[in-house]
């Protein structure tokens, strides 16, 4: 139980991120929540690949021993790149929305409804 600390953290920040996304009205804040959620998923992936007492999966000058799982790290790398691409694109969208609507409040960005 006490060893599960990273996973518990994953749960906590996932929910914080989701709650930020759901309850905040500011688009920038929503994107920050999305960032937090992304980081939570990345941390989850890294945590499931950790082996107790393991070392990084790099043979250069390493001591002999158990190594942590390399695949989750590869997956996380991919996921981080995707995350930054998404964030950049969404921020560009937000600036265009502000230029056209004069606000970033989701309550007022609802030209498309019904």
């Amino acid at each position, binding site marked *: 139980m006490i060893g599960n600390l990273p996973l518990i953290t994953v749960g906590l920040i996932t929910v914080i991120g989701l709650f930020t996304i759901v309850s905040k009205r500011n688009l920038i804040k929503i994107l920050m929540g999305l960032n937090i959620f992304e980081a939570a998923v990345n941390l989850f992936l890294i945590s499931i690949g950790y082996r107790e007492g393991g070392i*990084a999966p*790099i*043979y*250069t*000058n*390493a*001591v*002999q021993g158990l190594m942590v799982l390399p695949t989750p790290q590869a997956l996380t*790398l991919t996921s981080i*790149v995707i995350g*930054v691409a998404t964030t*950049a694109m969404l*921020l*560009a969208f937000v*600036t265009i929305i502000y*230029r056209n609507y004069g606000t970033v409040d989701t309550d007022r960005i609802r030209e498309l409804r019904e």
Partner: protein
Amino acid sequence: MQLSRIVRTAADILYPFILIFGLYIVIHGHLTPGGGFQGGAVIATGSVLLLVAFRYSELTGDLRKGWMKIFESGGLLLFIGTALAALLVGGVFFFNWLANTGSLFGIPVAFGPNPGEIYTAGVIPVMNLAVGIEVWGGLSLIVMYMMGDLEEGGERS
């Protein structure tokens, strides 16, 4: 307005350092922590540093969108071209056709912990370089677009 002279001088001096360090990370991707994406992001952060230290309009001579676009596309084409070249030598898409052949980047590596030799790992260094160039172009372009839009006043044209 921009940041003070001190910061600009520091940015000037740090820029080549960041560049060579990023290239070091890129090219040593198969030996040390890092790789194409990380190194490319480091180099791109160098461009981002220049963009914050100087005005975007001051940089147009040295940091051009057109070049960055070419880097981006060229890096990706190199990447996918390396992968497609495997079809010509009889492998499968993304087959590591240079590894353990003894030619360029094809020195067989000893198993277990060793200091590492840069001419190993087959297509991995090539792909690292390709991805590094692509990420450099891509991430720089994003910030350049945003800064350029900011300095034009952000009005609709």
